[in-house]
């Protein structure tokens, strides 16, 4: 009743091709953007910025990257955190070694470096498929971790491999408060999300999805699989690289390779599975879920009195694992699908059909 496209006629091609064809959706997105850009910066506390909002946005960006590769192109990757690490360390080195380089340019270069590394590790994907490829991407994860720890050059010969992010200065303004860092992250993430949305609606995205659904059939109709797969690896790694750079600069301030372990890769994989494989919105929903869940669990478990400390952390493990299984059993297509079902219901309400 409230959510209905009745009376909205498309009279031009641009109107037919816009991202959100239904007016209510556009209003909703506008409201979310207003909330994120204008209201949250003044309403949220520093704790919210540093512990929830900034990690959420960065994770959403990384999940977006992984979703392009795994959700849209169908190449399961377990090396996401490795590419994030490349981005973080590349940004650090660009700012360190190129005098006077603007930070944003360094971020872009960091993304491009990650894309190059992603290309290299994407090369086997032409011959290797499925889980074999997934395990092969683990090689990327371990190799990158090892290189960053082993060769001191990458961390400017810090004895423990830690890099400390330089201050972010753009056009003379220093982004040093949680609020300003949040806004910077938000701008970057919003832009890249828009780019991703448009990419997956374009011919490129169609080619990715054709490869995902059946690569041989895609090849038969004239899609150059190798190029398309490599492009997906490059774009995905670019997103992950920028996310990694933001992780170092906007979130933690100083990171070591141990911040980008296999555990992190799994975390991001969880996000896209729970959020929705092959969905831009799903990347955000999944990131929100995974960021909030441990915090809520932590709060929730503390409410039960008389549990010893070490049991508590194990209990969190158990609940986390159990929830993931539960979620997969109940809604294997993720939160994005739930959202879709909800929208459909709203369209029909109060009628059942």
């Amino acid at each position, binding site marked *: 009743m409230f959510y209905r496209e009745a009376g909205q006629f498309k009279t031009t091609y641009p109107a037919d091709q816009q991202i959100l064809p239904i007016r209510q959706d556009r209003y909703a997105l506008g409201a979310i953007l207003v909330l994120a850009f204008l209201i949250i910066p003044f309403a949220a506390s520093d704790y919210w910025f540093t512990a929830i909002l900034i990690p959420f946005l960065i994770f959403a960006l990384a999940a977006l990257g992984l979703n392009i590769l*795994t959700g849209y192109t169908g190449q*399961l990757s377990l090396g996401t955190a490795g590419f994030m690490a490349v981005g973080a360390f590349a940004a650090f080195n660009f700012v360190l070694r190129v005098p006077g380089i603007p930070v944003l340019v360094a971020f872009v270069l960091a993304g491009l470096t990650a894309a190059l590394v992603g290309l290299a590790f994407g090369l*086997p994907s032409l*011959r*290797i*498929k*499925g*889980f*074999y490829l*997934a*395990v*092969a991407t*683990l*090689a990327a994860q*371990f*190799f990158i*971790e*090892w290189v960053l*720890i*082993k060769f001191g050059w990458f961390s400017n010969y810090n004895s423990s491999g830690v890099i400390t992010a330089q201050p972010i200065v753009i056009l003379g303004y220093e982004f040093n408060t949680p609020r300003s860092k949040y806004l910077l992250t938000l701008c970057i993430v919003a832009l890249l999300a828009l780019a991703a949305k448009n990419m997956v609606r374009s011919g490129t995205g169609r080619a990715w999805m054709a490869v995902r659904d*059946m690569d*041989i*059939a895609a090849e*038969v109709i004239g899609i150059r699989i190798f190029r398309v797969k490599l492009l997906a690896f490059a774009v995905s790694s670019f997103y992950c690289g920028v996310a990694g750079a933001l992780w170092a600069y906007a979130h933690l301030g100083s990171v070591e390779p141990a911040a980008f372990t*296999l555990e992190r890769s*799994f975390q991001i*994989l*969880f996000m896209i*599975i729970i959020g929705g*494989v092959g969905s831009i919105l799903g990347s955000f929903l999944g990131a929100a879920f995974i960021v909030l869940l441990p915090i809520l669990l932590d709060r929730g478990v503390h409410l039960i009195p008389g549990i010893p400390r*070490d*049991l508590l952390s*194990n*209990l*969190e*493990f*158990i609940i*986390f*694992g*159990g*929830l*993931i*299984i539960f979620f*997969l*059993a109940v809604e*294997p297509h993720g939160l994005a699908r739930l959202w879709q079902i909800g929208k459909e219901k709203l369209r029909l309400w109060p009628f059942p059909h």
Partner: protein
Amino acid sequence: MTFFFEVLIGGLLAGVMYSLVALGFVLIYKASGVFNFAQGAMVFFAALTFISIVERGMNFWLAIAVTLAVMIALGFAIERVVLRPLVNQPQITLFMATIGLAYFVEGLAQGLWGAQVHAIELPIRDVPFTVAGVNVSQFDLFISGTAAVLVIALALFFNYTGIGRALRAVADDHQAALSIGIPLERIWGIVWAVAGFVALVAGLLWGSRTGVQFALTFTALKALPVLILGGFDSIAGAIVGGLIVGAAEKLAEVYIGSSLGLNIGTGIENWFPYALAILFLLVRPEGLFGEKRIERV
């Protein structure tokens, strides 16, 4: 030359340890197409359960029997709670579910028994002896013997028992197996129980080598390159892959590591097996013994 052989044999024997974990993966993948990431957690769970009840004063053999019963129960429970609701889902979903399962089992193991490191005393002493000038560890030989017995037993089980034949039928084609009346659910339960048994053996041997601790769960990561090298669905592949990875890893550590002179050697074993496996995969995309994939449009 003696030194080379010592390194080689040490590597081969270490490789057998990887094969033991890889076996559990292969069993489950063969029968249900599930890539079971929780195998490492199951190894940890089995070893920790065993050592904890031994430390509470139970007889060694009785403890093995009890742990085996627990692992079998766990296998059937996993089938009931995790797999059955996820029938007909894409493989990646099942894979994710096993990652969730890994978290669950790890938390359960440590929640039940605590997080301390335990030592397992197996009734075999770890003393080296010399064959033709090459030092060989008695313990490693025992492990290889165990692995050999295990593989032979599994081969007999798969080829000569009714359940084994049903397992192979299920592995070939779920639907065809169902249509001739093979109870799919029970078969999967059995496979997971057998994988639990293999996890127990691997857990005991790894545990007595490294101590029973959380790091046991990472044995899964050691087994993955073995798997892709040998092929996900081949028991022979798991053994041969383990031998190749073990030997290559040790040789690379000793020879490549030191000859590059970069102080590069340490830590190379974390990624070298994967790089090796990828090289093999580029030539044979299904691993050495994996079933050939036929693609149709």
